């Protein structure tokens, strides 16, 4: 395999969790809910996926467990912010703090245990295409899922009736409620979808990216996913592109370190975070376009009057 191909392969592996987690948050935010707990849901997904794969011996069970754990964990957030109308920013932070704590505790006995890697699935015929084949058609199931999810979410949001309703709820929950749309129920489902995606992203980290359990192994990716949603202006295809851009920056700094670039390794490690800030500046500086794209009810509490 050529070196370029190997690098591109690692870029894909690094981008997939970002794309999946950000996509889930995109749907959540489109419904008008700001869930800052992505990092927490991701790390819970990672530890549960790893543990389940260990116990069952099957990485597929791990993937399922990661998704289920992320969705279940997001219900905590849903209950507080949707039913009890707690502050969404603070509750999201609580979810992250609790997630990091619980995953550290659960995962303590898993540190250093050799993991099970999710095996790639070669798609017949397509996998034989030179260069593109090994890159896109000889990947693990989570990569295929990530592409399917981008297509599916894009179709759902902009082509389906249910998606239209979800966007209406995110843009004006008052009017949507008056029209008889189920604001709270839709938001619960959107929050759970976000949690399931974050859990899947976490499973990718502990079953594909580095098949082992390391404490805090999400390393701020949940926050980068949140920035990606802003970067993508709440649109799935732009999000896919942004996710790969970030994956390329992350991998670029790793390879730069391996090639012995003169910059200290810490500066290179800081690159993805610095890149996030730069991207946020570029995207946000035009106040008008940000206002047009942001779901109008984002982060605002909703209490139905009866």
């Amino acid at each position, binding site marked *: 395999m050529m070196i370029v191909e190997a690098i591109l392969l690692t870029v894909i592996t690094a981008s997939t969790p970002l794309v999946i987690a950000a996509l889930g948050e995109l749907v959540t935010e489109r419904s008008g809910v700001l869930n800052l707990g992505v990092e927490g849901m991701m790390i819970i997904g990672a530890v549960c996926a790893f543990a389940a794969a260990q116990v069952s011996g099957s990485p597929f069970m791990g993937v399922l467990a990661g998704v289920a754990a992320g969705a279940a964990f997001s219900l905590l957030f849903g209950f507080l912010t949707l039913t009890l109308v707690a502050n969404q920013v603070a509750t999201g932070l609580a979810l992250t703090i609790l997630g990091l704590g619980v995953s550290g505790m659960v995962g303590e006995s898993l540190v250093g245990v050799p993991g099970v890697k999710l095996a790639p699935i070669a798609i017949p015929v397509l996998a034989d295409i030179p260069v593109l084949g090994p890159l896109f058609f000889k990947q693990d199931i989570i990569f295929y899922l990530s592409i399917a999810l981008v297509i599916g979410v894009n179709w759902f949001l902009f082509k389906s009736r249910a998606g239209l309703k979800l966007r209406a709820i995110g843009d004006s929950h008052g009017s949507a409620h008056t029209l008889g749309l189920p604001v709270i129920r839709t938001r619960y489902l959107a929050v759970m979808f976000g949690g399931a995606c974050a859990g899947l992203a976490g499973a990718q980290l502990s079953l594909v990216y580095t098949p082992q359990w390391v404490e805090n192994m999400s390393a701020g990716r949940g926050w980068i996913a949140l920035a990606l949603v802003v970067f993508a202006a709440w649109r799935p295809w732009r999000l896919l592109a942004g996710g790969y851009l970030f994956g390329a920056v992350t991998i670029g700094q790793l390879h730069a370190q391996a090639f012995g670039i003169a910059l200290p390794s810490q500066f290179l490690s800081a690159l993805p*975070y610095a890149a996030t800030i730069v991207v946020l500046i570029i995207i946000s500086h035009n106040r008008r376009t940000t206002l047009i794209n942001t779901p109008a009810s984002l982060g605002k509490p909703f209490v139905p009057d009866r």
Partner: protein
Amino acid sequence: MRIELERRPRQSALFAIISPLLALALTVFFGGIMFALLGKDPVSALYSFFIEPLLEVWSLHELAIKAGPLILIAVGLSVCYRSNNWNIGAEGQFTVGAITGSILPIIFYEWHSPLLLPLMMVMGALGGAVYAGIPALLKTRFNTNEILTSLMLVYIAQLFLDWLVRGAWRDPGGYNFPQSRSFVSEAVLPEILSSSGRAHWGFAFALVAAVAVWFMMRYTLKGFQVVVLGQSERAGRFAGFSARGMVWFSMLFSGALAGLAGISEVSGSIGHLQPSISPGYGFTAIIVAFLGRLNPLGIVASGLVLALTYLGGEGAQLSIGVSDKVTRVFQGLLLFFVLSCDTLILYKVRIVFDRARKLAGRSVS
């Protein structure tokens, strides 16, 4: 079965006091269940976690050492959150404050002067403020989200510190350990009651800051501006207050306090710079601020409670052999319960059983 909320005509003063206590009680209760699940006797585990650290004088000193930075940071954050600015990068401002405050004792390590310590504190606070000024500048100038930028800056600050203590600032006589020169005695924050324990003046800074901010919020125009702009930017504009100015004020102020906490911690408790200087004080302070109901005096109490979770976690690790991760779990649980109990202040919560509702509906029609 469903839960319905009904807005109270005015905030419940009773629940404003009960809600944090209820949250504490629930946290302890669920903590007990957690210990039971871990196979420990819940009563004795809770005892060694929450009571034992309070029984000895030296350990009360340790409590003050941990509560100091928490209170100092949280008091600054409360001003931010009240004004609806979401600085969640206090951990980074803490780190940068520790670095800028350490410039004098590390680079000019032969300088002995009574001026050294005050200068270090001022430089630490300035460093924290400047670092918090970055998200403020980006928010006012480019309209970026301060939650994400302040948080990204945490990772950058920690990596910068790591680079400093492994590279440029590594102690030449330190056998290659990743740490800086030890501070000279004039650069060390003195202990308050050195005969009984290690607590240093950082705790006093925290108390002074809490009282000062309490006074500001209650009696000054600035405090009034914070509250008005936080509740409604529109109303604030009509009153002629500047929302942009408030972003700057609240971010710089909270950054300065976080920076002061950083240099106090390094100069008072550690004595040199090293790769890790905080067990997550900047993030835990967010919980402290909320548990204290964003009131500076409440924050003093809640800072002591959260400091106890750190101390209890360390103690429980030794005495009953549970992981120190338990601390983080307790902290997360506590924030959850605080937020859910706060609902009771603004709303009446009713549990509605669908059958009863259907029957009621029938009798109306």
